[in-house]
């Protein structure tokens, strides 16, 4: 009965063609890029802020959970409707509303692909710094929800450093503008609170982001190591020397092999690790920075340093890095990608522990890392048809997060907690910390209807 009322109400708001209730349509909203799964009772595709607001008011009145979703590329289960209810898909909200070069900002709707914004900025000589590997398809709304990072976040910061304001619909349907073009907004930093809240506090319907002028010059280096630990040490040595490259990315042997099979980028084979180091800035500064980086890398044991000769070579190199996760399908049918962060100097030790945990659980492991940020993405490769494998992979994943926490790090760099890492939250937060966060959630969403079952572990005894 309640479902009938819901579907009729949703149809009145957005039109019947933008409401899905057929089993095969809903089946396709059960998954994202993680291993999680959940079954919605309806899906709605609103076309405006007003429609989002009315949908939220309706579901709030009916007490039905809502899970926001963009392209469904989430890696921690954030877009999975684990408590059922309605999936609110933002793909129709996909307009770039304004590019304001004078104020160095752009206003976009949440369903805009990250790369679509980048492409719109290129002719103006501008770009948007956060560049998650999934940028071709991940949406700006999802990037805000997860506080997405990317290779270029080492020098320029993650999504929260680039969001100036948002229009947000809170769970009871109210619409607010938070932040804006003027700097130094007074009051609580609610923009900061919403970025990275994984769609649990509100649904952003407009996003005002900072855009930046493209640097005058770029150099991209591929540095080859015969030893994974050496590569890790080179990373902190570069930063310690006072150089902050735009990117400092790492791939290990397993990943290099998979990527090469998928992209034929010409990566060296039979090496333990490689770093992709990119520096940008004024043309006159770069040659010296490159020389310094090369000599540091050689001192730390690099076998070879190659510079990309032109944009095509640079693009090929980045395509290989961006395709790294999916490319693992070349080696094994499935994988679990982890996302932990350690202080940069602890990177070599963290990589050793990852390898050790892989051995302990008998799992093949590959490593991709935003090494400059100490952000590891160990990947466990497995065949999902093997009995009991999921439990083993999950247990190994939890052990890696424990290791990160013990090394003074944390349990996610950019993929979010979602449902996948709820159990790891107590590794880094006390009960008091978690209660403070629950109070924030309650202030926005007292009925716990917006993306429930994410981030916060259930209260003990409940």
């Amino acid at each position, binding site marked *: 009965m309640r479902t009938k009322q819901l579907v009729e109400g949703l149809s009145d708001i957005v039109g019947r063609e933008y409401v899905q209730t057929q089993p095969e*349509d809903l089946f396709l*909203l059960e998954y994202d*890029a993680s291993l*999680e799964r959940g079954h919605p009772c309806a899906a709605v595709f609103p076309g405006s802020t007003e429609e989002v607001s009315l949908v939220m008011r309706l579901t709030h009145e009916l007490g039905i959970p809502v899970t926001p979703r963009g392209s469904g590329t989430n890696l921690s289960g954030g877009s999975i409707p684990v408590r059922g209810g309605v999936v609110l898909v933002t793909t129709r909200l996909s307009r770039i509303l304004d590019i304001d070069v004078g104020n160095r900002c752009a206003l976009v709707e949440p369903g805009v692909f990250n790369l679509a914004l980048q492409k719109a900025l290129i002719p103006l000589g501008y770009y948007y710094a956060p560049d998650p590997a999934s940028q071709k398809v991940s949406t700006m709304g999802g990037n805000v929800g997860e506080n997405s990072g990317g290779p270029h976040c080492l020098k320029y910061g993650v999504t929260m450093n680039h969001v100036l304001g948002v229009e947000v619909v809170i769970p009871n349907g109210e619409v607010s503008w938070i932040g804006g073009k003027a700097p130094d907004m007074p009051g609580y930093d609610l923009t900061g609170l919403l970025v990275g809240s994984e769609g649990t506090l509100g649904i952003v319907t407009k996003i005002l982001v900072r855009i930046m002028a493209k640097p005058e010059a770029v150099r991209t280096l591929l540095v080859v190591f015969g030893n994974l630990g050496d590569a890790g040490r080179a990373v902190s040595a570069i930063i310690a020397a006072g150089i902050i490259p735009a990117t400092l990315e790492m791939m290990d042997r397993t990943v290099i092999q998979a990527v090469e099979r998928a992209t034929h980028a010409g990566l060296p084979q039979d090496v333990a690790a490689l770093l992709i180091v990119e520096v940008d800035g004024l043309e006159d500064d770069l040659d010296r920075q490159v020389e310094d980086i090369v000599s540091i890398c050689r001192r730390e044991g690099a076998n070879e340093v190659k510079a990309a000769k032109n944009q095509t070579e640079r693009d090929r190199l980045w395509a290989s890095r961006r395709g790294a996760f999916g490319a693992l399908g070349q080696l094994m049918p499935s994988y679990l990608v982890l996302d932990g962060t350690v202080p940069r100097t602890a990177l070599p030790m963290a990589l050793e522990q990852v390898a050790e945990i892989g051995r302990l659980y008998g799992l093949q492991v590959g490593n991709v890392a935003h090494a400059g940020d100490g952000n590891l993405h160990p990947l466990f490769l497995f065949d999902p*048809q093997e009995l009991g494998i*999921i439990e083993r992979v999950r247990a190994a994943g939890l052990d890696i997060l424990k290791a990160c926490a013990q090394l003074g790090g944390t349990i996610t760099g950019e993929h979010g907690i979602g449902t996948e890492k709820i159990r790891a939250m107590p590794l880094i937060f006390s009960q008091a910390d978690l209660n403070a966060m629950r109070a924030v959630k309650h202030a926005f969403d007292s009925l716990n209807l917006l993306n429930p079952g994410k981030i916060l572990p259930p209260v003990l005894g409940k």
Partner: protein
Amino acid sequence: MNRLNGVDSRMVGDNSQSTENRDLVPYYEEMLRCTRCGYCLAACPTYEILRQEAATARGRIQLLRGIAEGSIPVSSSVAYALWRCVDCGACSAHCPGGVRIEEILTGAKQRLATTQAMPAPLRELAVGLNNHHNVFDVEERCHSWLENMEDVSVSDHAPTAYFVGCAGNCDPMVQSAPHSFARILSILDEPFVLLGGEEWCCGYPLLAAGLPADDLIEHNVTVLESRDVRRIIISCPQGYYTWKTSYPSGVVDVLHSSDFLAEAVASGRIRWQDPVGQPLVVTYHDPCYLGRKSGVFDSPREILRSIPGIELREMSNNSESAMCCGGNVMLLDKSLTAAIASRRVDEAKATGAKGIVTSCPQCQRILARAAEYMGVDMRIWDISELVWKEMKCPHGRYNE
């Protein structure tokens, strides 16, 4: 639903599930290799327009998995989602895992084509093709462009046949493309055979729909053998691909008309007129079946770059990442085709070009209709037409 720690057993390929529909979906193991990363979404022209998961390679594969594992039934809406794919291959090119997406989808179509779920227009297509032997299901009068061939010398028997393809043969809007190519062959003194009404559809539309095309293939092979043909030059990229991949090998050599023209330019057989006035700025649209699926990217571009009066400007999505014109779903969803084609025309317009050149009469007609509907003043050329317009004719031009 069979759950385990929040993970649906379907996600982990639990073998205890019902397997009764496995035979409807071959390549099951290959499907398991899709990690659902979603990178294919960005490449899919149908997703670009419809923005729904069912209009993506990831969604289509997950639907088939759902059928294979008994989670969802075979239904006409699943079948509709499966066949409403433009078959452009962009998803495969963008899949970092190298999942053999087209094999999965084609394999499933072949099995589902035997069920009631198959969309009716495709079943009707099969009937029409068997009646009139062209994809437009019209009478042989569609070869009317052949009636205006006094300027072309055609042989009854020759080692080379010009195999036109359905669009060039049957749609008056693009018949000047084959006409131009026939004139070029003629002026180059290249003896060739034209099959006229004896040229049947290559069978691609049936094969793409998951249906057999044995009768069409057998007919075309027999006709060519009876005319002593050793080589066909073909303008239709789907036909080119189909002859290369689905016809018995060794019957004839298969050449695309743009490859033939590029070779003739390179060897000096085709020379250009002296340029007059401002250069014509054009962009090049890669047909999916010639570019991405057959690897022919360079020939048309070499031709265009060699013409003194032409300036080539690339669209932002070109070559391996070129966007489809949307033509392959026209039978099922005309408005989807129109929307996809409009995007492509917009992209072309953004280059500042005054014309779009392509190497496919089907792309040509789809893009031309879109441009007309949008009120965009751009001419859509088949490369043969442009070559015919710009080439120097040693014995004088027959008619303009």
